[in-house]
């Protein structure tokens, strides 16, 4: 038994179980922990694939930032905000059917892929500096310098956009011009003037 085999099997099981937990969890906190488990498993596989730099980045950015951001938002929304609500039985059946169809499609594709493999592609001996921080960093700052700088711009824009989306407070205006459903929607139903009124009708029988 090769230690690499054991490590691959461990990481693969951790990743798939985490993905299953993410998709199936009723409580989003458990989903976030499942996502964390998938990320850890894939970081381990990156190490096995001689991508040390990417394994470190995966741990720092995904496990350190993205999952923590998810957990912060779940906490901010409150304990039961993210809990799944009961949907009508018809919607449940439709979703389950759609999920099964997708799984069957994915399974068929994977089976075809595995069936079409005649000679498996084995990994040869990699170069010594394959995936090292020096090599990937050198590549990033030579051939990848333009996308690298564009990525920084993307991150800045994303951060500014996130702040702009979140800090928009719809302060109740002194006198709304039009009393349309949209107006009421955007100024929030909790305005004292509107507190007693029913919300505009919407069809609740959404699929």
């Amino acid at each position, binding site marked *: 038994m090769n230690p690499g085999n054991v490590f*691959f099997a461990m990481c693969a099981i951790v990743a798939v179980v985490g*993905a299953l937990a993410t998709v199936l969890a009723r409580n989003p906190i458990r989903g976030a922990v499942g996502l964390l488990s998938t990320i850890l498993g894939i970081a381990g596989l990156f190490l096995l*694939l001689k991508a040390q730099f990417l394994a470190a980045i995966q741990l720092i950015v995904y496990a350190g930032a993205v999952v923590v951001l998810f957990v912060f938002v779940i906490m901010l929304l409150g304990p039961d905000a*993210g809990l*799944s609500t009961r949907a009508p039985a018809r919607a449940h059946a439709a979703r389950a059917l759609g999920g099964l169809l997708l799984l069957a499609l994915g399974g068929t594709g994977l089976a075809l892929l595995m069936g079409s493999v005649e000679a498996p592609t084995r990994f040869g001996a990699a170069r010594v500096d394959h995936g090292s921080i020096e090599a990937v960093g050198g590549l990033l700052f030579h051939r990848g310098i333009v996308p690298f700088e564009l990525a920084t711009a993307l991150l800045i824009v*994303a951060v500014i956009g996130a702040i702009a989306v979140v800090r928009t407070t719809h302060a109740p205006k002194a006198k709304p011009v039009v009393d349309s459903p949209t107006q009421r929607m955007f100024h929030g139903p909790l305005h004292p003037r509107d507190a007693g009124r029913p919300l505009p009708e919407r069809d609740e029988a959404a699929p």
Partner: protein
Amino acid sequence: MNALGYMLEHYTLLSGVIFTLGAVGFLVRRNALVQLMSIELMLNAVSLALVSYNRVHDSDMNGQMFAFFLIAVAAAEAAVGLAIVLAFYRLRATVNTDEADVLKH
């Protein structure tokens, strides 16, 4: 010898499984947070495929460079997506995407 973990096909299979789970989660679940996490699952599966193919074609490291940019884009996507979820929750006090019909009316 059964060289588990030393063949490209195993990584491709694992990546496909995780991607399919993420796609099913995104389409079946109605919780916006879980849908965002499913997107992260799909992005992770793709970066695993990129890195494993790069291990075979190791004359350069373009696959790892792509995976690096993919992680940057995924971080930006998570930040903006969670901000939208938060703003939507303030508007409607729910994260159920069936309720996200403000633009319809």
